């Protein structure tokens, strides 16, 4: 996906733009597929928050690890899962990253050390601590990036994990995507100290807040943080962002003012980066049109792939519960 983008050739920022567009266009298509019932269950969109996933994963090395939430299409794509395999997962096909067993909320990929989408809020944090503990015990200079939302900060698992990571000096990058809401609950109604970086700092974890709508700022901060984590000890990044869509496809979105949503859309990370690039002479209309066309083709291809995919045979449903089948795994 990298390279060859636009007049400035290998301008890395064009790569970031393309990554964000891939996520945006992919998710826009998933909305259509949801209406057409090709995708079911819970579908949580990252739209508006793409700079977080793209900026942070851009700062990671290939053998670093990622732990994410149920809102993880963007993280999965930015980390290098193919659009085909993610789309196939959403359509419940065996060609999907999790064989169609996980769906939107549970994307996993060993090849990119993507340890999953966790759908119990806060449930990924202790796992990230353990991944980092293993790296430390094995003397491996790897980082685990752990994504979670502002809502997770209220869970005990957040506090227990921050404490463990700091106490044991573990290489975890905690990335809080603060989109100001946990479902319908505004941050200020959920947190005694709504400045989350301040809260994290209480664990003696170096913490800072970054504009999560600015992919360049996110990548820069993440790069610094990842280097620091690799040298030793956890860090905490609060990415201030906003989801443009409802919490999930089930959410009537009654709890936010339309004006608030519109104001944040003014800060859409994609046009924001485009404007920077145009001003620098690094992007012109033709280049943008070409990137858009390539991304659209990739999305079309992913949908075609998913639609041509196959269903896991029902007789296999009991496989992978444990390494060897247990006696009682049978169908009803």
């Amino acid at each position, binding site marked *: 996906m990298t390279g060859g983008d636009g007049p400035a050739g290998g301008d890395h920022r064009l790569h970031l733009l393309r990554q964000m567009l891939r996520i945006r266009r992919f998710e826009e298509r998933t909305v259509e597929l949801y209406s057409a019932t090709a995708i079911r269950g819970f579908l949580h969109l990252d739209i508006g928050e793409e700079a977080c996933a793209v900026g942070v994963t851009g700062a990671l090395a290939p053998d670093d690890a990622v732990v994410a939430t149920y809102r993880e299409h963007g993280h999965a794509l930015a980390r290098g899962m193919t659009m085909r395999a993610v789309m196939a997962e959403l359509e419940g096909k065996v060609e999907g990253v999790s064989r169609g067993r996980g769906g939107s909320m549970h994307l996993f990929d060993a090849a990119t050390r993507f340890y999953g989408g966790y759908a119990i809020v806060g449930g990924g944090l202790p796992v990230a601590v353990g991944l980092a503990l293993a790296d430390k015990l094995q003397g491996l200079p790897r980082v685990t990036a752990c994504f979670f939302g502002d809502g997770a900060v209220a869970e005990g698992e957040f506090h227990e994990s921050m404490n463990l990571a700091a106490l044991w000096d573990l290489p975890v990058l905690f990335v809080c995507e603060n989109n100001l809401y946990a479902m319908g609950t505004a941050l200020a109604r959920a947190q005694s100290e709504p400045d989350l970086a301040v809260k994290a700092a209480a664990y003696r974890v170096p913490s800072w807040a970054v504009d999560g709508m600015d992919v360049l700022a996110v990548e820069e901060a993440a790069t610094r943080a990842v280097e620091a984590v690799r040298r030793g000890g956890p860090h905490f990044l609060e990415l201030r962002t906003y989801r443009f869509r409802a919490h999930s496809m089930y959410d009537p979105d009654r709890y936010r003012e339309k004006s608030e949503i519109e104001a944040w859309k003014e800060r859409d990370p994609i046009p924001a980066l485009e404007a920077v690039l145009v001003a620098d002479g690094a992007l012109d209309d033709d280049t943008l049109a070409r990137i858009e066309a390539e991304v659209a083709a990739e999305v079309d291809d992913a949908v075609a792939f998913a639609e041509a995919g196959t269903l896991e045979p029902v007789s296999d449903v009991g496989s992978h519960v444990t390494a060897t089948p247990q006696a*009682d795994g049978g169908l009803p």
Partner: protein
Amino acid sequence: MTTTTYREAMRRALREALAGDERVFLMGEDVGAYGGCYAVSLGLLEEFGPDRVRDTPLSESAFVGAGIGAALAGMRPVVEIMTVNFSLLALDQIVNNAAALRYMSGGQFHVPLVIRMTTGAGRQLASQHSHSLEGWYAHVPGLRILAPATIGDAYGMLAPALDDPDPVLIFEHGALYGMKGDLPDDPDPVDLTSAAVRRTGDDLTIVTYGGTLGTALDAAERLAGEGIGAEVIDLRSLRPLDMPAVLASVGRTHRAVVVDEGWRSGSLSAEVSARITEDAFYDLDAPVARVCSAEVPMPYAKHLEDAVLPGADDVVTAARSLGA
């Protein structure tokens, strides 16, 4: 008589409880401004205000524990947990505190707390939102476990649950919220101690509860077409179990199938089956059969989820295998 839904029936019960007793308050994630993740409490915040319809942060252990504390000190909290899978974060408070406080305080303290939560599968929500763990809770002395399967019970179980001096957990199957039906304007009070016979029959007893009541009734209808009369018993209370009702039925039909969306091993269905075997062994003409979910974490893909869940076909097959 009004036509209503399971969701609205539950809301009506909550509204009446809040209006009727100042000590009652509702607390949980998104119960207020959002209207409840399954819209059960929609409108109650506007009616009763934020002290009585209290939104909580994502802190299951703390707000369930706070419900216990408030109940100890004289309030009558109704705590909502979005989904049974999330209740595991509060398992410590429920099992180690709520269930044990009366006993370990030598009877000095008691916990008149109601906890409501969604349970069950069927909506492609995969491995962390779909399980039926009410059978685990039914293992624990000190708790009363209810599973309303009808609109009448969705409405009628809350008031007696609030009157109970001890903790009551109410499991609402997620697939039932949209179910439509009639509710009398002045319904009879529900007796929490009794199972209900939802269909009578002489050849076989199907024992079930909650989300699989519909499955059992479908199966019974199909069996009727084959000349097999299936009696369907809705347990309603999973702890304590109304075994006299089950045993009376099995005493007449001599055959039993237990249908439970939970997993088979170490389950509620195992308990019911064991009790029938212990107490009605000589009434049985065939071994007790069970129809449960396949023992896998729930898969996302629809065809897999359908295959994993107990269906009417499975119940019919099990019933036939008993030679009814």
